[in-house]
């Protein structure tokens, strides 16, 4: 168990990187607290696996340092860093039994056989494969293989951190839920530092205390699920978190007044940004009220998704999504208004901080 500091890490796969686009990881400077449960969220190709491999030592970063509890480990091997990692594509040792697969990381470290047996049985129980312990791993199904892969990551109790790279992709939803709660239980019990990569935002939001959102080789925001939801630091986070994502509308800003293609909104503060920046207003569909008051809108479609309705509409020449309660009504000439506290202003895609200290910047 350790605190992990990433000190100005950059990584390029090719030799001699020059422009920022040569870097798969642009610049990551971040601290993972000891015992924290982090979810790493981001679209395909944004550098999540690269970041994990750098932490575990499978990959040497092109630039920057990695510290475990303040000790520089940049040049230490994976073995010396003592990290467990579960891979995106399950790896199993075909010729070994399920039991031996799980015992492998322990036996390699000369753990006494009684301890091995105790740990392996515990993990077998957890992943629900006790009845197959003595079977060769070769004939197993894809999800069983993934469980073994996961189990091998969890079997060691003395690791500095456990890194999960989308460990549950091929597992069915119910089992996924079971395993995720088991992971949380293990986390509480042993206090591992955990980093959990996923594409799936619900998975990220339920698993982690802190969610790290990556986009195009950079960490764009780190925060609690609530912070990500209410104060997305980057328009990408706005789109990516939440379903439907945040509405981002082109806006002309003059002092504390916003002009959305003719519709004017007064802000409680005057955003500061460099002149000439592309300015946008972000508002989550959940914070738009539809009724007889406010700005005119043309409704094009209403999707009923159970407890809520999603209204697709056109506002100031832009498509916009609005969340309406199940029993909410859309009047004949609908108008909308934005909850002032939920408005975020973006300059060149990055959020412009409001003067209010509330809302917790990460």
């Amino acid at each position: 168990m350790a605190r992990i500091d990433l000190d100005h890490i950059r990584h390029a796969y090719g030799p001699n990187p020059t422009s920022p686009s040569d870097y798969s990881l642009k610049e990551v400077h971040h601290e993972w607290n000891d015992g924290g449960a982090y979810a790493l969220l981001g679209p395909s190709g944004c550098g999540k696996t690269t970041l994990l491999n750098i932490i575990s030592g499978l990959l040497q970063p092109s630039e920057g340092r990695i510290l475990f509890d303040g000790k520089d480990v940049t040049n230490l091997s994976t073995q010396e860093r003592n990290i467990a990692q579960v891979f995106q594509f399950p790896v199993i040792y075909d010729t070994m039994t399920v039991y031996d697969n799980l015992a492998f990381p322990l036996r390699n470290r000369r753990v006494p056989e009684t301890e091995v047996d105790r740990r392996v049985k515990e993990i077998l129980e957890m992943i629900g494969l006790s009845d197959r312990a003595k079977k060769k791993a070769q004939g197993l199904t894809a999800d069983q293989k993934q469980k073994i892969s996961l189990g091998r990551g969890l079997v060691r109790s003395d690791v500095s951190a456990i890194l999960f790279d989308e460990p549950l992709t091929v597992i069915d939803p119910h089992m996924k839920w079971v395993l995720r709660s088991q992971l949380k239980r293990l986390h509480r019990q042993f206090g591992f530092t955990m980093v959990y990569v996923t594409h799936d935002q619900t998975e990220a939001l339920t698993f982690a205390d802190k969610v790290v959102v990556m986009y195009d080789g950079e960490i764009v925001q780190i925060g609690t699920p609530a912070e990500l939801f209410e104060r997305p630091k980057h328009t990408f986070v706005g789109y990516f978190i939440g379903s439907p994502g945040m509405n981002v509308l082109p806006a002309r800003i003059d002092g504390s007044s916003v002009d959305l293609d003719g519709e004017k909104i007064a802000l409680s503060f005057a955003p500061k940004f460099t002149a000439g920046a592309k300015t946008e207003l972000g508002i989550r569909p959940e914070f738009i009220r539809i009724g007889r008051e406010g700005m005119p809108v043309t409704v094009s479609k209403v999707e009923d998704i159970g407890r809520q309705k999603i209204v697709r509409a056109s506002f100031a020449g832009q498509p916009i999504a609005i969340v309406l309660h199940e029993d909410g009504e859309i009047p004949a000439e609908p108008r909308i208004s934005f909850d002032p506290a939920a408005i975020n202003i973006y300059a060149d895609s990055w959020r412009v901080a409001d003067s209010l200290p509330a809302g917790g910047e990460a």
Partner: protein
Amino acid sequence: MEKTWNNKAWFMVLPVLVLVAFSAVIPLMTVVNYSVQDTFGNNQFFWAGTSWFSDVLESDRFWDALTRNLAFSAIILAIEIPLGILIALNMPKKGLGVPVCLVLMSLPLLIPWNVVGTIWQVFGRVDIGLLGYTLAALGINYNYVNNVFDAWVTLIVMDVWHWTSLVVLLCYAGLVSIPDAYYQAAKIDGASRWSVFRYIQLPKMKRVLLIAFLLRFMDSFMIYTEPFVVTGGGPGNSTTFLSIDLVKMAIGQFDLGPAAALSLIYFLIILLLSWIFYTVMTNSDAKT
């Protein structure tokens, strides 16, 4: 989807059947024919039954040659398979080294047998050959013409030089098919170099190794050209393998009957041994 049945399709395989018939089945049946008949010349043949077979099987000459064959195959397999694996493990996986290594490895395979034989025959000669001369100059008494041990060493070294590449290339193909994730997982699991070989690389190479093993076994069991060119079966009969003996019998002495019987026995031995190896190796694979 509906399968279409069309019996005319059989005509498509006809050319192959004809080809196989003329190139394999008919010659083989001719041999079978010779093996059960005797002749005193004048193209007159008599039914000889299984007498040629029992003659061959009862002769020391056959058993001695067979023992030599088995010993030779066992020795070269014991050298070429581990050596091939070792070289394949140490070949580069990416970069400019890959094509260079592959071409270097393929070179010996491109050289015809009798050329290999001639190269080594000259190479090993004490009077003009580089190897023979150097060894002699170093005070090592090396002479493949007179010394049985030297003759065997020469044949084995030749075969290893000529054919280890085949094992290397096959193993290499198996090795490069292993995804990186396996090596990464092994590092995380703290596996030793040996464990990586034992639990990741060897299982992935198993299939190609089986092929390499069978190919090298069958080929070495049929060895002919090298001893024919280099040692001519000598000194004495020490490198007279079944194939050499067969040619001596059939062409040298023109004993068609026993020669035909011997070639059939020879053929059946190869078939039987290959089948046994194959079954044993694939069964150990399926066992859980």
